[in-house]
């Protein structure tokens, strides 16, 4: 049992840093960057928690994790108990502990921000989940008595689908997930790189959800092999969580030259298909000496850090606004900087230059300056006339966001989409315009975060449960 500190002592303690791989080493491998807390480090960090009631951090968590309670169990050195507290509401703790933008969620709401640094809630969640996995802690099985004679179909096995499936399974529903790719996990598998989220961890958490009785059909593309209309016929409720899914391109000349990738393709090759391990795996990927990634979000950071690890001598971010406007998490930008990623800010690409064989050899850009704020409140970048220049590059990776993939929506009669093709769904319940269909995650909001998708999956599960309970 660890010592409970007085509040005054808690304020004196610094946030416990997380040890991580040396940047010079880690750019040569795909191993995870941070090592995670040891038990001693976790306890030292847990000791700083003020145990607020009501807890602002929980308000900030879309997965409603019982944060003070699980942290208190760490202080009891009852890590299994801490794990059970987390699992009451979150089926993906090892994932969320790694990839949530905690600074905007639980940690952003932490009262300790007023005095210093917030409690490292994400690191603690990760510690507990990793400990439970390493020690073979099994989830409590569902009581047969709670089983309901109702079937729910979920389209997509990404964070929204998995979170919804776990909650519904725990409530006793018969849940089937349909996944288009050959492995479950969605963006957790194809999008987020190994060095940020090891795939074995995703697979483990998916396995736990399967143990709740959730069936996952992979290689099953709703929209082709079966329509949403058919699912509506066959199931009591349908949750659409198929992700945003279609990469945006810039619409500049030269985008179809060899060597230009969408970030989705680049990351899918490396993450899902494990092209980083070619020829051990058959899917190839090509990375030249100089690689430019266009964009300033988390996906851009993932792509540029992947390019560096795949052997690019120079891996460069090109972003049209300034650093302050970059949407990527501060932590991701810092990790990229430590790994020697270069940043060409206030720079806008206008043309990809090719050689006589149709391969990329350059990227023409123009320098930008910040003008008046635009509708997003960020200062609008405007080109500086005559500042055009050409960078010599071998690859251009475009990470400027996604559009709605139409294949699911076009078979969903009566489910309204907005002008961008995203499903219209109630923010609090995930209800669509069809009484048996719910939707959530990126296919409703456009590209967002894992935790927002988890939150949407949970809200839909709650609403589906309420609706189906009334029916019986």
């Amino acid at each position, binding site marked *: 049992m660890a010592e409970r500190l007085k509040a005054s002592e808690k304020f004196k303690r610094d946030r416990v840093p997380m040890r991580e791989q040396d940047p010079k080493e880690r750019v040569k491998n795909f191993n995870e960057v941070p090592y995670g807390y040891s038990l001693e480090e976790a306890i030292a960090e847990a000791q700083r928690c003020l145990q607020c009631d009501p807890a602002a951090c929980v308000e900030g968590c879309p997965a409603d994790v019982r944060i003070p309670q699980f942290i208190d169990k760490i202080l009891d050195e009852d890590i299994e108990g801490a794990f059970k507290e987390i699992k009451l509401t979150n089926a993906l703790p090892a994932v969320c502990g790694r990839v949530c933008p905690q600074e905007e969620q639980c940690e952003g709401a932490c009262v300790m921000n007023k005095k210093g640094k917030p409690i490292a809630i994400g690191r603690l969640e990760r510690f507990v989940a990793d400990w439970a996995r390493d020690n073979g802690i099994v989830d409590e099985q569902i009581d047969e008595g709670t089983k309901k004679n109702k079937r729910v179909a979920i389209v997509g096995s990404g964070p929204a689908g998995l979170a919804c499936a776990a909650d519904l399974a725990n409530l006793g529903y018969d849940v089937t997930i349909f996944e288009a790719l*050959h492995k479950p996990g969605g963006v957790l598998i*194809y999008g987020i790189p190994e060095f940020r989220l090891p795939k074995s961890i995703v697979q483990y958490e998916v396995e736990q959800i399967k143990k709740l009785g959730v069936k996952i059909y992979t290689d099953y*593309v709703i929209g*082709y092999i079966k329509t949403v209309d058919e699912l509506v016929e066959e199931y009591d409720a349908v949750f659409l969580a198929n992700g945003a899914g279609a990469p945006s391109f810039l619409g500049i000349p030269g985008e*179809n030259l060899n060597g230009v990738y969408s970030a989705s393709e680049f990351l899918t090759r490396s993450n899902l*298909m494990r092209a980083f391990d070619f020829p051990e795996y058959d*899917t190839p990927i090509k990375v030249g000496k100089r690689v430019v990634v266009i964009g300033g979000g988390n996906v851009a950071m993932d792509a540029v850090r992947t390019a560096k690890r795949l052997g690019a001598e120079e891996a460069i971010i090109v972003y049209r606004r300034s650093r302050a406007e970059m949407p990527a998490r501060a932590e991701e930008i810092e990790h990229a900087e430590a790994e020697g990623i270069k940043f060409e800010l206030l720079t806008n690409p206008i043309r990809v230059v090719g050689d006589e064989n*149709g391969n990329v050899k350059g990227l023409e850009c123009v320098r930008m300056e910040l003008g008046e704020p635009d509708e997003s409140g960020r200062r609008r970048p405007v080109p500086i006339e005559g500042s055009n220049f050409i960078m010599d590059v071998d690859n251009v990776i475009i990470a400027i966001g996604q559009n709605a*993939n*139409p294949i699911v929506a076009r078979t969903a009669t009566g489910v309204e989409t907005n002008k961008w093709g995203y499903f219209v769904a109630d923010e609090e319940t995930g209800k669509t315009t069809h009484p048996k269909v719910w939707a959530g995650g990126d296919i409703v909001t456009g590209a967002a975060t894992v935790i927002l998708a988890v939150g949407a999956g949970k809200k839909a599960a709650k609403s589906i449960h309420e609706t189906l309970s009334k029916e019986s």
Partner: protein
Amino acid sequence: MARILKKEQWSETIFSMLIDAKDVAKASKAGQFIILIPREHGERVPLTIADSNPDEGWVQIVFQVVGKSTLELSRMNEGDELYSFVGPLGMPSEVEKFDGKVVMIGGGIGIAPVHPIAKTLKEMGNHVISIIGARTADLLIMEDKMKDASTELIIATDDGSKGKKGFVNLVLEELLATEADNVSKIWAIGPPIMMKACVESAKKFNKPIIVSLNPIMVDGTGMCGACRVTVGGETKFACIDGPEFDGALVDFDELMARQKYYADQEKKALELYKAKEGIA
């Protein structure tokens, strides 16, 4: 899942397999494709569906050994399970009962994807003239099936060892010289260079021609954009917008350049696999 029910070798490098995939067979329509991964660690290989039988629950694929993945697939046997098999994918062919005749052109391995379209068109009551071609008689596939799926069947080989001597596009031109007024639509599927030539021939007679494109793909569901092609000056994704497009609008030179991007790696993977498996 996806077990190989039947395997046939049709030439030194061409194989046919019937795959046990009931749901895919039920849902698939002419013009669509599947993606398979032969074994774990494999890559995703798109192949157009050559035939399917919803009652017996199988899908037929026909492929030519060109690299590591197709070589590995060709060495799998009846009873083996594919690591992954997903489909149907892509937009079905836009088939209807046309006023005039329909010309179906299949070159080499491209005869396989032409087959279900011809079959469907004939079932709809169309007069189907098929032109199937290969380099030489030994490489000509699906002759009997194409005979069944067509009203008239014309065979051509580059070396004249069977049927007419010459390329299928020249046979098309010869046909259009007398029949152009009676032809409503043309489909051409085969190597890009062949499809490009057929498009040029059709243009001479101002006839609409559909082609089926086979760019490099990864997911095949519109997620990655690897398969982007320029059609009428616009970027399209062959996987979800195609694979069939108006041939007159396709930028074939770009398609052919893009298909070569991984040639070095493909060669390396094939050599390593052959060395490992002791294949000469």
